[in-house]
């Protein structure tokens, strides 16, 4: 079983400031890691994912995240936020699956972090 903890429920920030949204996970097996964004009244949209390889992954809208296996973390960062980044962000994991490397991808989500960008 896996669990995901997002350490901040709300993060207020001024426009053009940097931001970091924190995510820690717990799992007894290897996992894939994801960040999703949910704009008001819209569905979840995949922001970025870590499957393997380089621990620094880049996503859409200028976001990036770094996988740290020793600290079981996958924090999301953006060097300069915009008003349009105001949304709720979810960190999620899914197990890598069987020996063949396939997984049906059941996601376990964190509680979410509401990012509010002020002018």
């Amino acid at each position, binding site marked *: 079983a896996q669990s*995901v903890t*997002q350490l901040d429920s709300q993060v207020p920030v001024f426009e053009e400031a940097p931001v970091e949204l924190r995510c820690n996970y717990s799992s007894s097996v290897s996992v*894939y890691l994801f960040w*999703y964004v949910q704009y008001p*009244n*819209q*569905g*979840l*949209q*995949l922001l970025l*994912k870590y*499957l393997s390889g380089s621990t620094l992954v880049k996503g859409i809208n200028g976001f990036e995240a770094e996988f740290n296996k020793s600290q079981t973390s996958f924090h999301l960062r953006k060097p300069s936020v915009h008003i349009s980044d105001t949304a709720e962000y*979810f960190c*999620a994991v899914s197990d*890598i699956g069987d020996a063949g*490397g*396939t*997984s*049906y*991808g*059941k*996601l*376990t*989500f*964190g*509680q*979410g972090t509401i990012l509010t960008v002020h002018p």
Partner: protein
Amino acid sequence: GAGVSQTPSNKVTEKGKYVELRCDPISGHTALYWYRQSLGQGPEFLIYFQGTGAADDSGLPNDRFFAVRPEGSVSTLKIQRTERGDSAVYLCASSFPGLAFNEQFFGPGTRLTVL
């Protein structure tokens, strides 16, 4: 192209009633998932279909919840004898299973309110 659609977008019902929530996945996507998002929480897995069969229903909270996908496309989540605690946003997602990773595409959700 068309994404995942869910109907209705909002459903208000009274305690004890029966409700059905519908999900239309992206055409060609054989995998379909239901999640439930309670207020202030992240989505929680309910059930996963591969084709017509429920491959994993371990997230269904009790036997009042049931889901079907008879033709391997549209899915219906059915809730009997609704309770106030069932109020939540019900999300559907679909994917096309690949070699190692299936990106899930989410619908906008159905907001269920049980009075």
